[in-house]
């Protein structure tokens, strides 16, 4: 019953060889080159000045040529058997297809743009080159198939840059696109492609090709992608902080006596104001969030408890579930339209804080419901059984056993939801937003304006709060308002700086909610798993 058919390789391998070192170094140079390309694209490394006095295209041309030559060398050395590697029978259809596509693009551009042939020539030429590269990559063993096409591409690009065909002042305007492609964009982008395909081939060689080589190459690619994503997102945060923090924190300190001053937060905008601020927007956001939470949280938790503890699983719960998920994914602007059509006419045909609260609470509702349901479901049935076995009624069980156990999850859901609605702009445009630069006294004074009147005749009791039914500002709206008003608006000095500071404060508020929410969740999860 033996299956002695499998290939065997060494269980314990020899130490690192020179070949591996060269392959690793090539991959590293490739990665560094792509980093340099990104920095050039982001204008952190200036393109025009060149690097150390050498023009940028020349720099990239030299590196790419070198990478191309070394990568081809690595493949050939492995293919002729100078070093012992374990390449697969072929490089795979995906790899070959990708190389074929890349080369087809190159061929198409060269034949149609540089040589100036019409479609009758360039289309067949493009196809021919693409198919030729595809077959060229498929038929030889993996070591040649995954290094030659990439290396040749880098070499070709290097030659184009070195010969000055594409120089610093080069640009190309495709006839049917509005955009032109200039050297400061094209050179780094080609640099990224060229350095990555060679680095990929070299990473494979470092793992001696075969499945270990594939793993090396794939890991390298994923590390790079993940690093790029994180860098972009963190750079964005850092950028906003850098631009906005100075203005946002300016003048902060203890004023006359014990009073605390934070001009940017506590001032409004008016002609008399020395250092204008965003107080009305801050107050507006606080009230919007408080109002939305007061309405959505009890509803969401109540519905979640009903669905999990009382309702029988069936058509009704299914309908509610579909409705909740639908609500959750409904675009925010549609909520705004709804508020505009339904709420605004009923609140005296003006935009109002209260309408904003309602609309935001509708947006918050599904999130609270979904997260509450999830944490209620994760409370084990044993708790309920144990409580019921002690003769406790269902409601008492829910109140004193199930809800407390589910509370951490619910709280987390609410905090994350609040983070989401605090940054929401679109619906507020339609139902709440008022002045672009409100003065301090125009901040909504909800607490001070409650009025209760007893009137004769229906409806007998008249409760009103004018502040709730007036338009208001909010942090995200404030930012939008500055953009639409034009950044050179004359209302306040240096409104661009003002806008960055607003963006910074908004980011701070929203991300704090998220950070607190996620920290709470991590804390409770740890607590449960380490019981």
């Amino acid at each position: 019953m033996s299956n002695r058919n499998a290939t065997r390789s060494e269980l314990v391998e020899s130490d690192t060889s020179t070949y591996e070192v060269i392959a690793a170094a090539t991959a590293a140079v490739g990665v560094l080159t792509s980093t340099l390309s990104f920095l050039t694209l982001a204008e952190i490394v200036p393109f025009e000045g060149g690097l150390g006095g050498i023009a940028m295209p020349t720099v990239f041309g030299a590196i790419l040529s070198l990478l191309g030559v070394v990568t081809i060398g690595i493949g050939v050395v492995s293919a002729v058997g100078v070093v012992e590697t374990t390449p697969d029978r072929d490089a795979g259809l995906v790899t070959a297809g990708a190389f074929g596509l890349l080369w087809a693009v190159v061929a198409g551009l060269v034949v149609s743009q540089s040589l100036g042939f019409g479609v009758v020539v360039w289309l067949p030429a493009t196809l021919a080159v693409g198919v030729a590269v595809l077959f060229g990559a498929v038929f030889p063993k993996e070591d040649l198939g995954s290094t030659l096409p990439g290396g040749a591409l880098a070499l070709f690009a290097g030659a184009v840059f070195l010969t000055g065909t594409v120089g610093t002042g080069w640009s190309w305007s495709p006839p049917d696109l509005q955009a032109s492609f200039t050297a400061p964009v094209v050179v780094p982008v080609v640099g990224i492609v060229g350095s990555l395909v060679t680095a990929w081939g070299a990473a494979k060689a470092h793992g001696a090709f075969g499945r270990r080589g594939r793993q090396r190459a794939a890991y390298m690619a994923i590390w790079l992608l993940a690093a790029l994503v994180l860098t972009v997102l963190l750079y964005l945060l850092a950028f906003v902080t850098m631009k906005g923090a100075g203005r946002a924190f300016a003048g902060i300190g203890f004023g006359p006596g014990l009073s605390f001053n934070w001009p940017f937060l506590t001032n409004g905008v008016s002609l008399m104001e020395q250092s204008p601020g965003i107080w009305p927007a801050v107050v507006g956001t606080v009230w919007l969030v408080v109002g939305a939470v007061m309405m959505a949280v009890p509803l969401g938790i109540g519905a979640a408890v009903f669905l999990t503890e009382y309702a029988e699983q069936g058509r009704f719960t299914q309908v509610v579930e579909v409705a909740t998920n639908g609500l959750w994914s409904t675009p925010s602007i549609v909520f705004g339209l709804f508020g505009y059509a339904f709420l605004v006419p009923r609140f005296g045909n003006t935009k109002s804080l209260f309408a904003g609260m309602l609309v935001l609470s509708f947006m918050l509702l599904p999130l609270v419901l979904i997260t509450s349901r999830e944490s209620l479901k994760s409370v084990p049935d044993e708790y309920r059984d144990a409580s019921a076995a002690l003769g406790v009624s269902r409601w008492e069980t829910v109140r004193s056993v199930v809800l407390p156990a589910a509370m951490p999850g619910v709280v987390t859901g609410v905090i994350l939801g609040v983070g989401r609605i605090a940054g929401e702009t679109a619906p507020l445009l339609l139902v709440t937003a008022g002045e672009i630069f409100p003065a301090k006294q125009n901040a909504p004074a909800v607490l001070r304006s409650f009025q209760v009147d007893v009137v004769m005749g229906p409806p007998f009791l008249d409760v009103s709060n004018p502040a709730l039914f007036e338009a208001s500002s909010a942090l995200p709206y404030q930012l939008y308002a500055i953009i639409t008003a034009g950044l050179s608006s004359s209302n306040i000095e240096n409104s661009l700086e003002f806008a960055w500071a607003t963006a910074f404060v908004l980011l701070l508020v929203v991300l704090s909610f998220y950070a607190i929410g996620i920290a709470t969740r991590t804390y409770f999860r740890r607590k449960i798993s380490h019981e």
Partner: protein
Amino acid sequence: MSEHQTETETEPDRERAAEATEPDAAPSTATATTESASRPEPSTERTTVAGETDETTRPEWVQYDFDGESKLSVHDLDVYYGDEHALKGVSMEIPEESVTALIGPSGCGKSTYLRCLNRMNDRIKAARIDGSVELDGQNVYDDNANLVELRKRVGMVFQSPNPFPKSIRDNISYGPRKHGDINTGLLSRLVGRSDKEAEEKLVERSLRDAALWDEVSGRLDDNALGLSGGQQQRLCIARCLATDPEVILMDEPASALDPIATSKIEDLITDLAEEYTVVVVTHNMQQAARISDQTAVFLTGGELVEYDDTEKIFENPESQRVEDYISGKFG
């Protein structure tokens, strides 16, 4: 399974309850599920055992002389999970083409030991391993060891069946495909070097060897997760055989199965020993006595206490503690 009556649960109650309510857990596993084979967390290895007598383990108890070649030889193997010393200085020679049973109470480190033999413990980040394990004289813990090659030669069958959510055929041919021994991809079909026939042969032979062919031959394209628990486990054994291993490690392969499925697996293990070196962890002592050629007894604290012919261990052990354990005084 009366030997587990005194075992103290360290898991939180709700987890035990959750496991007990799993629909496919056979009744016989109710006390066996504390030691999760797929993910042995340090906390599950801690067990207090009442009724053990104090004695010092003598080196000659673990000295086992046998004729023929030694397939695996383990020297001074120590495993730490964080601060916990899970396996203490285990040395052991495992003869080829035989069945070696590892027995002992829950938390004695026998599963940990088994997972050291194909370095599956590397998956647990907190684990630290000292000592050496040699497969045919080559140290698998060498810095340059090729893990993939090691696991190809040392196959493993887990406690609960873990087929992939693919067809039965794809489950069997998974290993050889990944090793590049079988190639039926689009490209190889296009250029006419597909190994379709070789694959068919391999699938049939592996399934026959695992005594599953008659039950599934008509539905090789069905999802493997649709099979019964016992069939799934035999599929996992077939999957393991398909990669042509030299050693097969089995971690309580029958603990999640009903008695009929269990006896099928036991027969299979005995057959496999003609060709392969089988190391099987069990805490069912009758099972160990039935199927194994030699038995190693691990006791509390991750210590190998005695290792000898199965008959010798069960009829006349040297160690008082082993005798107590065998006769059910603790465990």
